[in-house]
């Protein structure tokens, strides 16, 4: 099982961009700018997860009353920014609409700055009757137009797998699901299995391998399984597919020689898989070496039926396996305290967007949660930079996984300080 990242489709790939229209609008009003002003709402700086098409559409609708009742025009740009032009519109009315949009994203760091303060990155206001403001906004608009057209060009030229993966057309639906599920049972999966090490960084700077996660690369799987279908477009149906994937992975991993294996491995599984016959077969092959296997369970699966989780967890533990809860990130971690789940490990998925954007107070909150959960249980995954590691250490986390953790592990191995 693996979790799907959030993909945002980029709108208006062909034809005249909204940015071009925006520049045109500015040029038209240049000579008659009396009473004109503009507000640039920087939704492009939201967290990627909040920059979704339907979020932006809903946000844009907050201006509807304004557009209907006043001389106002709204542009929804291809980078998700909004630009509102107003002529003689009472600022209070605009404030009201902006406030609504702000409220929608109240959990996003972009709205954390106080409105109107110089820390506020949410909006920029331009009084277009002022030459300086006009010029500044024109420059900004032209810059955005250029960015939009280069983005458009890249998107249409880039036929690389990564791009097609993110953009892949047809969404998963019940009709194509059956065929894909069938194919999943037939394709070779063993060569898609990858591993990534989770490492414990000790106080003396030395490292120790915690476990090696064995997982199927979703990009590769998608390419082999259904290159034209976006497996991640529908989270429920994707979840259904992972149940089949689990069984395939188990049958491959069951071939490992657990007796002579020196490392601990981890596997992502659904709870239903843990309770299935396939897992029983797998367990026969693991035998007395269950302590060398960590089972990773997704938060969504755990909470879908907590009773089932408790049952599975206890069964796993009784037979010697360790349990890891996956699927949290630094933000959701502040909403749920996983300590009640009594797992052996809890994994937080890092993402760049958390760096520097999580204010000090919130890092403290995370640290409190880390302490409640147990420092020795926490693993920060997807660490891709030194910044991520520093953030983790600041929050009291000493276990890491991800590309950057791999780099560190390699360095440590070459220096002989990894155990």
């Amino acid at each position, binding site marked *: 099982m693996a979790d799907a990242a959030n993909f945002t489709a980029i709108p208006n790939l062909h034809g005249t961009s909204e940015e071009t229209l925006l520049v045109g609008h500015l040029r038209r009003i240049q000579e008659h700018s009396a009473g004109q002003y503009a507000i640039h709402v920087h939704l492009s700086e939201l967290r990627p997860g909040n920059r979704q098409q339907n979020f932006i559409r809903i946000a844009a609708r907050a201006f509807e009353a304004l557009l209907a009742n006043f001389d106002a025009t709204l542009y929804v740009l291809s980078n998700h920014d909004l630009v509102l032009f107003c002529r003689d519109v009472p600022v209070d009315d605009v404030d009201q609409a902006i406030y609504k949009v702000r409220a929608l994203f109240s959990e996003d760091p972009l709205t954390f700055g106080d409105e109107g303060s110089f820390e506020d990155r949410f909006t920029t206001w331009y009084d277009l009757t002022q030459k300086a403001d006009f010029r500044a906004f024109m420059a900004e608009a032209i810059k955005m137009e250029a960015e939009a057209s280069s983005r458009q060009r890249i998107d249409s030229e880039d036929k690389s797998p990564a791009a097609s993966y993110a953009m892949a057309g047809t969404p998963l639906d019940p009709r194509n699901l059956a065929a894909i599920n069938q194919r999943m049972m037939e394709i070779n999966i063993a060569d898609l299995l990858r591993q990534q090490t989770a490492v414990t960084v000790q106080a003396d700077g030395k490292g120790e391998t915690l476990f090696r996660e064995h997982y199927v690369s979703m990009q590769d799987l998608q390419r082999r399984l259904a290159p034209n279908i976006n497996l991640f477009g529908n989270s429920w149906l994707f979840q259904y597919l992972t149940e089949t994937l689990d069984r395939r992975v188990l049958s491959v991993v069951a071939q490992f020689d657990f007796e002579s294996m020196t490392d601990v491995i981890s596997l992502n599984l659904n709870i239903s898989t843990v309770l299935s016959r396939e897992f029983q077969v797998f367990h026969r092959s693991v035998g007395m070496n269950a302590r060398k296997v960590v089972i990773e369970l997704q938060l*969504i699966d755990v909470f879908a039926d907590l009773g089932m989780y*408790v049952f599975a967890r*206890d069964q796993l533990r009784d037979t010697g396996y360790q349990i890891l809860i996956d699927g949290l990130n630094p933000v959701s971690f502040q909403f749920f305290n996983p300590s*009640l789940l009594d797992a052996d490990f809890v994994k937080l998925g890092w993402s760049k967007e958390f760096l520097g954007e999580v204010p000090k107070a919130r890092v403290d909150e995370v640290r409190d949660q880390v302490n409640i959960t147990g420092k020795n249980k926490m693993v920060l995954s997807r660490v891709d930079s030194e910044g991520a590691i520093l953030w983790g250490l600041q929050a009291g986390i000493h276990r890491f996984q991800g590309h950057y953790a791999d780099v560190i592990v390699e360095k440590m191995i070459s220096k002989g300080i990894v155990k």
Partner: protein
Amino acid sequence: MTEPATRLPSQEKLLLDYIHRLDQHKEGRKMVHLHLSALRPFNRREHHICAAAEDFEPFVAALDGQLFILKNADIFFIFKQEVQPSVETVVQQTRYLFSDDPLVLEEDDSDIQFSDWYDVETDYDKILHIVQDLISAASDQNRSFTNQMDTRSALKAKQEKGEPLTPEVLGRVESALTRTDLSNMVRRQYICSLSRRRVPETAFSELFISIADLRETLLPGINLMANRWLFQHLTETLDRRMLSMLSKTDTLTISGDISFNLNVGTLLSQEFQAFDDNITANRRGGMIIELQKVNIFANLGAYLFAREFIQAKGYRVCIDGLSYQSMAVIDRERLGADFVKLIWHSEMMDGGEEIHNHIRTMIRHAGEDRVVLCRVDNREAIDFGQSVGITMFQGRHIEHLIAEDNRRKELMRLKRRMERSSETP
């Protein structure tokens, strides 16, 4: 969290074995069934049940009878008919122990008696039935833990609930759904507060599409819930149908505040926008949108956005489907929900003082006027709920109380009318 029993509780199993063996020795045997499970919780503590059982010990010692104490506290005593008079005396004594309990006090007006007497020879089939029912109820309690994918359970589920839903069937159902009139499958259940004398007062009512009816009409023999994720996908289609029915006021009569279930994905869809455009602003304040907890864990960001979006428009939000275990992890206030729904399960009551205190603390934390105890099937659930501070209830038993209250009001009206007509010469 208590560890669930995976096998049948042994007393139940022993009783069933005994009844089976009794088939050969029915003559001259009698049975009494004491419904101690119907006592108030505070009368049903372990020492009460032990005290009640103790009185039967002399018969057991003299080999005149066999005693079984079930997990739900019911007592079964099978004895030789020679000792019937002494057994009757003992049952009278036991009854006296609980004379302050409504089970005894209100016995005359109730369907449930303190004790039921049987002649094993003539009532054998009936006895076997009762015992089998009790046992299947006891194992139902653990069903959520044992509905694993092993072949035996899968076969059993298939026999009881039908063939599991597959993607192919789901695809067909979803396209059939767009053409089917679902308005006659919409059910309504009331969420009520209760007065001291258990007179219900409606807070709001939930509208939902009956899955049982849907299955009956569209897919007899298919178990729609066999796979959680496929079912979840189906609910998104049902969401859209529900919205379209709610938009046409002639399809559903709506009075008072209402609630209905939607997925977060639906709230962010064009269909919801169209629905929202169609209803008047003041209706929004009377609508509570229920979100299944799995939606929150599937994508917290989307939940937070959607919640903000609909609350700003005036709708209220209720998180549905919590067990007492999952409620511990859900911080209602932090998640900004107006209400949460806690699903009743007798496990909560059977869990002992420690669990009770834990639940009481959770309710207080969530806000006593913010928690609805749902799937309330019996009075026990209400008693328990009130004992931990819950003030709102929903379920079959509440529907029963509402019907009863309506009957009572109707009688009062009749009585007044009669009085009036007798006053006028």
